[in-house]
């Protein structure tokens, strides 16, 4: 079981991630009405939100340190928040501002924060290899740092993912592969893309432990991830963890979602993982409702502050586009 501070940290982190995504969802529509144009408004381009997937971030990253590495997907905000990416700089980056992590060059799918060893990629499964590399570096240097690679259930069918699993196991590297199974690869349901029901079974093919976490359960994930991180830190090699998670929004904002069964999201929201986590935390007397409310208020204030910072920031000068092509 998590300690009180771990409990509260996970709760606050999940609320922060949720509020962050819901705030972006509103801001994203600015300038895009009445006619939706993906290139218009203060947040142009594609926007992939992770509301519903917060347990995957908090339940794993609670066990991590700044010197551990996380590689996330094209839906990266919750993981970035849980890994401790600077929220102001990250938000400024998503607004395309000069004060962003990359001065506005990368945007929301390409958040890189070397200060906390966080990276993501807009290309499916392409974070798996770099996580293996980060773990290899830790092993070669003799540190006990670990790496976590997040992929979606769609990415679990990628060659790059499987090659990374094999390499990590072959070299007994400290990597935790986390499959965020939200059951959708854009419009294609998992049942139509994946030959087996549980991707955790694939771990057997690479001689590593595999775990399946049902129903977006933060506490079960906390336990399994804690063991996996401890195993990795002590030379026990990689672990594959599959989490059944929820995708509340479409693949991207503006996705008409005509492929999605009616009522699916409402049914998922009825068993929202954050609400369940909060209820457990209070019912088991780990924390009081007042403590939870204070955590929620802190989370919201931090997000609001980050958005205010991002909105107030200046855009880069056009010719700054030419900088930083080479190191």
């Amino acid at each position: 079981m998590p300690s009180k501070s771990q409990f509260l940290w996970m709760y606050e982190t999940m609320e922060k991630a949720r509020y962050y995504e819901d705030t972006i969802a509103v801001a994203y529509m600015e300038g895009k009405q009445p006619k939706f144009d993906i290139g218009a408004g203060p947040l142009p381009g594609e926007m992939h939100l992770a509301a519903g997937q917060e347990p995957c971030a908090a339940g794993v990253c609670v066990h991590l340190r700044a010197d551990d590495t996380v590689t996330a997907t094209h839906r990266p905000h919750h993981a970035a928040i849980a890994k401790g990416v600077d929220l102001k700089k990250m938000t400024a980056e998503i607004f395309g501002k000069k004060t962003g992590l990359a001065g506005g060059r990368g945007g929301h799918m390409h958040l890189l924060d070397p200060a906390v060893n966080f990276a993501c990629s807009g290309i499916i499964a392409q974070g798996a290899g770099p996580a293996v590399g980060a773990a290899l570096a830790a092993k070669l240097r003799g540190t006990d740092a670990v790496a976590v690679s997040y992929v979606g259930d769609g990415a679990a069918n990628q060659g790059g993912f499987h090659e990374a699993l094999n390499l990590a196991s072959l070299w007994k590297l400290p990597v935790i592969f986390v499959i965020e199974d939200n059951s959708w690869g854009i419009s294609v349901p998992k049942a139509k893309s994946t030959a087996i029901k549980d991707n955790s079974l694939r771990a057997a093919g690479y001689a590593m432990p595999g775990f399946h976490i049902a129903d977006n359960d933060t506490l079960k994930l906390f336990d399994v991830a804690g063991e996996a991180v401890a195993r990795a830190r002590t030379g026990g090699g990689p672990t594959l963890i599959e989490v059944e998670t929820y995708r509340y929004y479409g693949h991207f904002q503006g996705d008409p979602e005509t492929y999605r069964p009616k009522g699916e999201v409402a049914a998922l929201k009825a068993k929202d993982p954050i609400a369940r986590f909060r209820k457990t935390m209070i019912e088991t007397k780990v924390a009081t409702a007042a403590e939870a409310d204070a955590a929620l208020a802190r989370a919201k204030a931090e997000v609001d502050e980050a958005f205010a910072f991002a909105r107030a920031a200046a855009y880069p000068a056009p010719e700054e586009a030419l900088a930083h092509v080479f190191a």
Partner: protein
Amino acid sequence: MSSNRIMTVSRAMSEAIAQEMRADPNVFVMGEDVGAYGGIFGATSGLLGEFGESRVRDTPISETAFIGAGVGAAMAGMRPIVELMFVDFFGVCMDAIYNLAAKNVYFSGGNCKVPMVIMTGTGGGYSDAGQHSQTLHATFAHLPGLKVVAPSNAYDAKGLMTTAIRDDGPVMFMFHKGLQGLAWMASPEGAATELPEESYVLPFGQAKIVRPGKDVTIVAISMMVHHAMEAAKALEKEGVDAEVIDLRTLVPLDRKTVIQSVKKTGRLIVVDEDYKSYGLTSEIIASVVEENPAYLKSPPRRLAVPDVPIPYSRPMEQYILPDAVDIAAAVRATLGKKAA
């Protein structure tokens, strides 16, 4: 038969595919989100309803497998049309493209056909950043064995798609997202065109003079044709008569039409949304200069992305993408004119 149907590029593509699927049971479609979604950029819209899941197949996100499978199916006598939604994703499966699709005809001494269409979205301008906004025309045009198509409008898209499906070798069909006529992305006025209902083919390797002129030749492709036309319109007011050429295909490349035009105008601007170095722009200029440098009355100019990844933030992205203002300025510079 002519009709007054104005249709988008995406509808033109799906109509061509549907007509070929009706005519030939060997034609089928597979790729990412081509089924219920109808293709993220609308190119397979409506096909699932008519042809069913057997011939309109959603694939897992497993590009190496399904592009490779496309090659195998094509060599087995089928005519697969395979969509991989963003050209930026092709690195994942490049081996299947440039070592299998592109080379198997050659490796068989011509005894083997690979009648496969690979279609993909190109281009930026809507702040989707460096992994979803590249154009990469030259990457594929550089590889022997691949034909490369990049239409600028619906009429060309339908005719070129029909030709691509009937071609016995692999064809890269590179459509610009911003020309598709999507409900959620701005599209220039000229991209949607009148579209004949009947099936028709447009030969590869025939550029089109979309605006005749005598003072300067502007060579463009895909989205850049629209920017070139806008520039030509602005220049007309300044007394400059620009000829605009839409290449339509990169491989085969219609060097002849370009050379004839430059022979007439004596001046050349080439514009591409791809990276500048080692690209289409230098290829066109080299083709003219190799023929006869004396055709040129002033140094040729090229406009393209200045060898930087496509930035996310709008001011920077707009700065690096060539547009009508850049093209008009290049024309004025070539003519030794001051800005209007």
